[in-house]
């Protein structure tokens, strides 16, 4: 078992971070078609993540994990509250925040399928601000790191799900960011590929002092991989802590179900 060294440097901090969405009632209530309803997707989340941590963002579907992740990646503006990432304010210094993060999504469609993996990386390297020379050096490195060197010149559409996920990792590695946000990173992967990804996160990313925040609803994955977890339900962060600290002798799944049912009854 690899041991991680935790330095007490906070790289991500949120204070009462909230996201409310406004929606038209629409056809669900035709007589009040234009009336608006408010829905709180993320409710006053306070979170602190330290450098070198693997932090798991857990919760059932619709808990607010993806909205929180997208807010932290500057793709959605918060309604209220604040957050800093590597010391940069999320809203005021969005461009600086983006220079320190990578979002690795399970969304296969985030690449140009008719281009090769290498061409995709060349394009995104430019968007990350790498010069031509830097890109020429960096792309073979990241391809090697994720084991995609030989397949790099095949069209993206020819890749298997596992290969596509590895290309997503390669893209995330291009700019050598501080924090990796991973949204359901093992979705669609077979057990072997999932194990390889976990190993990669520990041996390559954490060993290099990076921070990884994983949004998942796979509790076994979180239990195996994460140093700490935050459990979200109905937009609120219900519990944050180490797996054993929270669950004690119980399994994380058992603790999760108890927490979610009791919270559901209270609300």
């Amino acid at each position, binding site marked *: 078992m690899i041991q991680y060294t935790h330095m007490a440097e906070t790289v991500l901090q949120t204070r009462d971070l909230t*996201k409310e*969405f*406004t929606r038209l009632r629409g056809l669900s209530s035709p007589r009040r078609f234009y009336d608006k309803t408010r829905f709180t*997707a993320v409710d006053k989340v306070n979170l602190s993540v330290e450098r070198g941590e693997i932090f798991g963002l857990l919760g059932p579907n619709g808990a607010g994990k993806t*909205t929180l992740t*997208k807010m932290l*990646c*500057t*793709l*959605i*503006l918060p*309604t209220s509250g604040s957050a800093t990432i590597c010391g940069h304010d999320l809203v005021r210094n969005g*461009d*600086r925040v*983006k*220079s320190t*993060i*990578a*979002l690795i*999504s399970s*969304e*296969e*469609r*985030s*690449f*140009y*399928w*008719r*281009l090769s993996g290498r*061409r995709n990386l*060349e*394009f*995104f390297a*430019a*968007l*990350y*601000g790498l*010069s*031509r020379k830097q890109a020429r050096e960096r792309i073979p490195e990241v391809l090697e790191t994720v084991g995609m060197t030989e397949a790099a010149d095949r069209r993206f559409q020819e890749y298997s799900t596992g290969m596509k996920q590895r290309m997503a990792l390669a*893209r995330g590695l291009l*700019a050598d960011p501080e924090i990796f946000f991973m949204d359901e990173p093992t979705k669609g992967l077979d057990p072997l590929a999932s194990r390889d990804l976990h190993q990669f996160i520990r041996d390559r990313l954490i060993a290099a002092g990076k921070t990884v925040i994983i949004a998942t609803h796979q509790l076994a994955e979180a239990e195996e991989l994460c140093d700490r977890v935050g459990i979200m339900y109905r937009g609120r962060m219900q519990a944050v802590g180490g797996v054993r600290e929270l669950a004690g002798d119980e399994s994380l799944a058992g603790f999760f179900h108890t927490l979610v049912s009791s919270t559901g009854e209270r609300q």
Partner: protein
Amino acid sequence: MILRKPLAFLKKDFLMEISYRFAFFLQFGGIFFSVVMFYFVAKLIGDAPTVQSSLSRYGGEYFSFVLVGIAFSNFLSVGLGSFSTSIRGEQMMGTLEAMLVTPTRLSTVIVSSSQWNFAFTSIRVGVYLLLGALFFGVDFSNASVLPALTALVLTVIAFSSLGIISASFIMIFKRGDPLAWLISTSSTLLGGVYYPVSILPHWLQVLSLFFPITYALDAIRLSLLQGYGFAGIARDLLALTVFSIVTLPISLVIFRYAVRRAKKDGSLAYY
């Protein structure tokens, strides 16, 4: 370095375009058939005195007139539609979020995504003119190239301003853009693409003065077919400049509002 991102877009879009080889070459076939069709329409119209008098400002010959009109009206289509098409394309391919999580501004993404469309349209326009000159006897020997290019640049800016406003609609409503539809159809009707503005009823001629295509096509025809210099097309250039100065800042403000609203709604990548 400042051109690194725009050039990366250009290269990516070029590679994507030629990955569909058949469609790529088919477009040039379409240009050929369009030119041939208008050649025969021009033969039908012939040298009737009414045609000559209506077109005397541009040399009196219908085929040259309409060739330049259909070729350069391509810039209207691409200027109006390219920005919104690019956004919608990236939203549908799922690549927009992946781009926006990089330290690249959305405005850079939108403008750079449209470059290939403008570059390819320039090639298409070149093919129209080349076919006309080589096979159908259109005379460009008197053309004043620099004034024509100046008019073209101003035309692209003016059309793009409208296109950016159109992209703002797509950013918020995802589909259905009344502005592009209205301007595109009105411009084709009033701007003098297929017939000179002078044959329209007086009130429609007045209305046509509010559309940049009217000035764009007038300036380009006069400089390419009649060899007019800057002085001869000064009125058109001034109108296009004023139009650009007024609409470009407005379009950027509207676009910034649309992006902020999409980020608030969380609908940036929805389609």
